């Protein structure tokens, strides 16, 4: 027993086990803190995406991976939250990219309408199509009504104002 008494040796083994358990607990706590930092960063990115999407419709939130009330999450649960949030951020950015491309397409169409109204008769681009707030719309219409239609006088009119609530 290397000079130690039996009781001294028995006292040391649980103490060593206790120290190792404490080290594991500390390591797990550190891992949970790291996951929480990642969740916080993802939440900030998701919030920024939601703000960017304002005016062009909300980003549909997929179902939450966890149910239940507030509690201290385990390592596994925090990983699930982190992964689900990362997926939502990716989905939000994909959706914003898709909307951005669509808005760009409408913007080019509006430019073409303004340059050559006669080639885009009765076409319409709304502010919503461009990702802007409001209910305005650019509409290619004939100048002076039927006379303009017959003579090929076309212009782009911007109508504004939202319809009154009924």
């Amino acid at each position: 027993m290397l000079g130690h008494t039996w009781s001294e040796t028995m006292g040391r083994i649980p103490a060593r086990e206790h120290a190792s358990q404490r080290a594991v607990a500390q390591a797990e706590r550190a891992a949970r803190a790291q996951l929480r930092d990642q969740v916080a960063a993802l939440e900030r990115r998701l919030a920024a995406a939601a703000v960017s999407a304002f005016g062009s419709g909300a980003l549909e939130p997929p179902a939450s991976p966890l149910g239940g009330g507030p509690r201290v999450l385990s390592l596994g649960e925090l990983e699930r939250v982190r992964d689900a949030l990362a997926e939502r951020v990716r989905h939000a950015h994909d959706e914003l990219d898709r909307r951005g491309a669509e808005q760009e397409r409408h913007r080019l169409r509006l430019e073409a309408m303004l340059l050559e109204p006669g080639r885009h008769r009765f076409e319409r681009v709304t502010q919503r199509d461009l990702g802007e707030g409001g209910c305005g719309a650019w509409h290619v219409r004939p100048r002076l009504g039927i006379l303009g239609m017959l003579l090929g006088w076309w212009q782009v009119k911007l109508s504004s104002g939202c319809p009154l609530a009924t």
Partner: protein
Amino acid sequence: MSEPEPGWVERELALEFPALGLASLALAAPQGRARRTDPGVAARLRALSDRFGGRRAVTLRQEPVPAAFRVFFRHVGLDPDEQRTPVEEAVLERLLRGEFASRGRVEDALLLAVVETGVPVLALDDERLDGPLGLRAARRGERLGEGPLAPDLPDGRLVIADARRPVAVLFGDVAPSLRPEGGCRRLRLVAVRAPGVPSVHVEEALWTAAEVLRAG
């Protein structure tokens, strides 16, 4: 009216969330006619309604205090897009109703506090509390409140508790027996400090609510 008192946080919880905290403030409850909506407070709510439109409701989540609560919600297993944070819930209701509706002195005080500071405040009947308030995880077999209808609490549910029992679920229900009803003579206002929220905001929330209640 006393000064805000810091609450306790159970050791295990404090190790997980070192910046988590709780503060409370005791004051006399408004009595009789003073429990009704005050015209000045109603006007203040109307003025506040004008500051919150659709855009603000969305950008709110990027403001420091509401953002900290959103993050903390996620950290404790709540999805703020499903169970909204208190300030977002109040602003959403303002959008749906067209105004911050006045519902009585105590309710108005809590509404003003959360909308102006972003920090939720709840009110409890101080005379029915036993000892200082704090945050901890519920233990096996504990219930929210007393009596046969008191709901069971799952083991580990985060709660606000006094020395004897849980008094409210964190960001959730208050024990029915501790709600400040008509006979309540003394109120305790309670605010939870989510990690990342400076304590000055928590105190400001308590003072905002207290000022409205004191005005009666």
